């Protein structure tokens, strides 16, 4: 996403996270099922307010990529949080200056 924007501008945000998204449907060569281990939830907050949320299921691809939009309303911080199975949690932030 850009670091600056005009008020009211619609920003495109592309985010990708490194995660195998083990679907739970794969088997090893010896026939054992590989247990499900996926990211379940993604949220984007803008100065603390949730502006976008995603519920992920096993059919989401590995290393999930999401491209979405949000309106530049005021300067501040966007926070991006992933959470999932086995206590997985990851987050990052991005500063935005709105003129």
């Amino acid at each position, binding site marked *: 996403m850009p670091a600056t924007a005009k008020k009211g501008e*619609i*920003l495109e945000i592309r985010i990708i996270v490194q995660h195998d998204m083990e*679907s739970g*449907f*794969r*088997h*090893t*060569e010896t026939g054992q099922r*590989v247990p499900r281990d996926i990211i379940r939830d993604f949220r984007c907050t*803008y100065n603390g*307010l*949730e*502006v*976008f*949320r*995603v*519920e*992920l*299921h*096993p*059919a*989401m*691809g*590995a290393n*999930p*990529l*999401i*491209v*979405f*939009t*949000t*309106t530049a*309303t005021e300067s501040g911080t966007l926070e991006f949080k992933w959470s999932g199975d086995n206590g997985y949690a990851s987050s990052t932030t991005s500063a935005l200056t709105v003129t």
Partner: protein
Amino acid sequence: MSAAAASVLPSLNALATVDDATQAVDKILSGRPAKVGRVTLEIPPLVENGNLVTMKVSVQSPMTEADYVRAIHIVAEGNPLPNVVSFFLSPRAGRAAITTRIRLGDSQRVRAIAQMNDGSFWQGDAATLVTLAACTEV
């Protein structure tokens, strides 16, 4: 060998039927109708490998406080589980257009159900052919 070579093919009897997908959609709709229109689902008509398929969904909507898309649900008719992903938006989105990458286990129809702020539903779909990679591990 250190690589965990795992088959990506689910056992055939685990593949969801169209009925499972219909049930999943019914659960979302809770008895309300879903009109066809306003929702565009873009998936390549021919997919080289179902493990990572780029998918774009967009809904015609002004995305104002008065008229916006609250949620978009993606349901697959040929995967082991029908629910693929659900997006939850607000007027802050500006546009209802999302791109992501999904898994498709077989050639199938994929459906997108959009719920509006007034409680109404709209839907769209896309059909695709999923081919298998040549010379796999197992």
